[in-house]
């Protein structure tokens, strides 16, 4: 069995984000271990179990890696039905199954880092609110939201400690209800902008392309070549999409996770949960290096960049340099504390937990 099979829950390769990163990780592993990669995509969530059964039945694959949170039920069921097949689950746990590796991320961390930056930037430019445009109410999105809220409130406290000045930041989170509605994302962002939230995190897949667009359009209408307003990306380093108007992204290293999963499949160890957090560089706030990686990825894919790669890079970095240094100082401090385990981020896996978070960090 020399084949790795990736099974995408939706969209498939071509999002230059989550799915493409998974593919990238698989390809890297394949190269290193002399394997082959095949992949396919669900034609709708109704097919999950039958597709996975079909894949497992063929006995052709070293490991079948389900990519995407939506496989939450079908993947463990398939792993139970086919105990001799190894499975990996990007974005989900292994459910104590010996033949499955769970690949989890601490989305809260990425969300919190973005929250710190968004809130401090807002303070720097005199705003009283930050925003987030979310897709649907599912736990990974909740975790981002919870982290974001926490980060924003932490930032306010930190700013007070730093300067002695009071600041107040409201966190406006809106759920558009779909992951594939850029128009809904844009209208929601325009509402947030009008409500005074000029830093907006996108956690809604294609929907949050509308966030970036609203930010750029508002900026250009005011005659600016860079923000604020700023959008913030998720999963990938999405800055290249709107250079100058995306200040950063909450990263999630799906490639690393997939690579690790393949490595596990080659060994004999029983399944476990690989939780990737900032400590293992699995989550984080996009670094300059990340940004360059993704510009590179986009160039290779043939993406219609807004200028030459160098121009794009310069614009992104210039935007970062344009915000007051205390923003980055705050980020660095938060990151340090996080790595040191000195910060406990709120849980948000159930409706009750997220409701509590919303009450606590309004």
């Amino acid at each position, binding site marked *: 069995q020399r084949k790795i099979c990736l099974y995408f829950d939706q969209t498939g390769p071509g999002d230059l984000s989550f799915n493409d990163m998974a593919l990238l990780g698989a390809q890297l592993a394949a190269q290193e271990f002399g394997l082959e990669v095949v992949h396919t995509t669900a*034609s709708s969530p*109704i097919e999950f179990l039958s597709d996975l059964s079909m894949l497992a039945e063929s006995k052709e694959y070293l490991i079948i890696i389900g990519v995407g949170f939506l496989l939450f039920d079908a993947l463990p069921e398939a792993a139970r039905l086919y105990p001799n097949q190894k499975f990996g689950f990007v974005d989900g746990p292994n459910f104590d199954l010996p033949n499955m590796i769970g690949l989890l991320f601490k989305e809260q961390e990425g969300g919190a880092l973005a929250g710190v930056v968004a809130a401090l930037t807002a303070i720097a430019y005199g705003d009283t609110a930050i925003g987030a445009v979310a897709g649907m109410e599912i736990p990974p999105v*909740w975790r981002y939201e919870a982290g974001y809220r926490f980060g924003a409130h932490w930032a306010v406290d930190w700013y007070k400690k730093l300067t002695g000045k009071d600041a107040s930041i409201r966190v406006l989170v809106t759920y558009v209800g779909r992951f594939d509605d850029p128009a809904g994302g844009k209208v929601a962002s325009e509402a947030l902008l009008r409500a005074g939230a000029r830093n907006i995190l996108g956690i809604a897949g294609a929907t949050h392309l509308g966030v970036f667009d609203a930010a750029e359009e508002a900026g250009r209408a005011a005659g600016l070549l860079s923000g604020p307003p700023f959008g913030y990306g998720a999963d990938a380093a999405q800055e290249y999409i709107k250079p100058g108007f995306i200040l950063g992204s909450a990263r999630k290293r799906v490639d690393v996770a997939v690579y690790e999963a393949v490595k596990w499949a080659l060994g004999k160890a029983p399944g476990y949960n690989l939780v990737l957090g900032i400590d293992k560089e699995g989550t984080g706030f996009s670094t300059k290096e990340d940004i360059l990686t993704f510009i590179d990825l986009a160039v290779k894919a043939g993406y219609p960049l807004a200028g030459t790669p160098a121009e794009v890079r310069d614009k992104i970095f210039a935007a970062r340099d344009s915000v007051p240094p205390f923003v980055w100082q705050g980020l660095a401090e938060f990151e340090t504390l996080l790595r040191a385990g000195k910060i406990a981020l709120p849980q948000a896996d159930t409706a009750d937990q997220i409701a509590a978070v919303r009450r606590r960090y309004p």
Partner: protein
Amino acid sequence: MRVVLESLGALVLGLVIGALIMAVWGRDPWASYRALFEGAWGNTRALASSVSRSLPLVLTGLTFAIGVRAGLFNIGAQGQMIIGAIVGLSSALLALPAGFKLPVAMVLSALAGVLWALPVALLKLLRGVSEVISTIMLNWVAHWLALYLVVRKLSDPVRGERTFQVPVGMRFPLIQGELTWALVVSLLAALFLYWLLWYHAKGYEIRAAGLNPKAATTAGISVRRSILLAILLGGACAAWAGAIQVLGRFPYAITSDLAILGSLGFDGIAVALIGRNHPLGVLAGAFFFGTLATGAARMGLRGIPIDMIQIIQGVIVVSMAIPEAFRLLRVKKTSVPTKGKS
């Protein structure tokens, strides 16, 4: 019989055009199609999956088909299905003896579908509001209502991504692979509507009202009552589509993005049209769609991206529109003058 042959001809045409597209893009059409059909029918598990996949489509297809029979363009299956799924699931909360749970859930879900369809009928009959508008709008209302209920009221206390699961005793038992006895629900519904439409006075009236409302009225048939009946029966069918998705299919719960319901309601339109709005044709049309959906992943493994598969599906559906073209071809042949026979 002729109708069946025409549909098969259209299917073949669609497959051929699809093959051309794949060939142009440098993929082996033969191998891809083999993968598609192996993936869908290759073994009993696959076949069971294809059949199972088609069960809700039968029901939403029936909703549209009976509407057409009554002269309606009823595209409300999506919303009614969502409501049916929610109510079917919620009936798990009732304290009932185990054996009763499933039947009661099905009855309640059908009632809910009927209630959700009622405004469509009332708006049409009392205010002349076209069912096209009211169903599109109510579909969205149902969608948002469900998003609220699934996340806020019915969610699994320990897992936020979906509602609680239907207890084991309330599920449709498995037959084979993914296929459950929900099969009987879809089959019976199709047979029942077939019987109703062609072997019962009410169905006769529905068809009469749909084909010529004026003549039907003149003959003392209440067109309004027929429309009401068609809309409400449609509501019940669509609700059952939702119910069997929740009660008869893993994970026996509704995910918080409603993904397990997908666009089954809308797909029912195409299913019904391909089945020529005949309940038995709907069975065939649904199985065809079930096949395409189930076989797609296997085709994907052969390097055909999901979007390409969608294109091919689109081409096949478009070709399904034109059986008339075959009739045209045949006419050309027979219209050569023959010696007077009158």
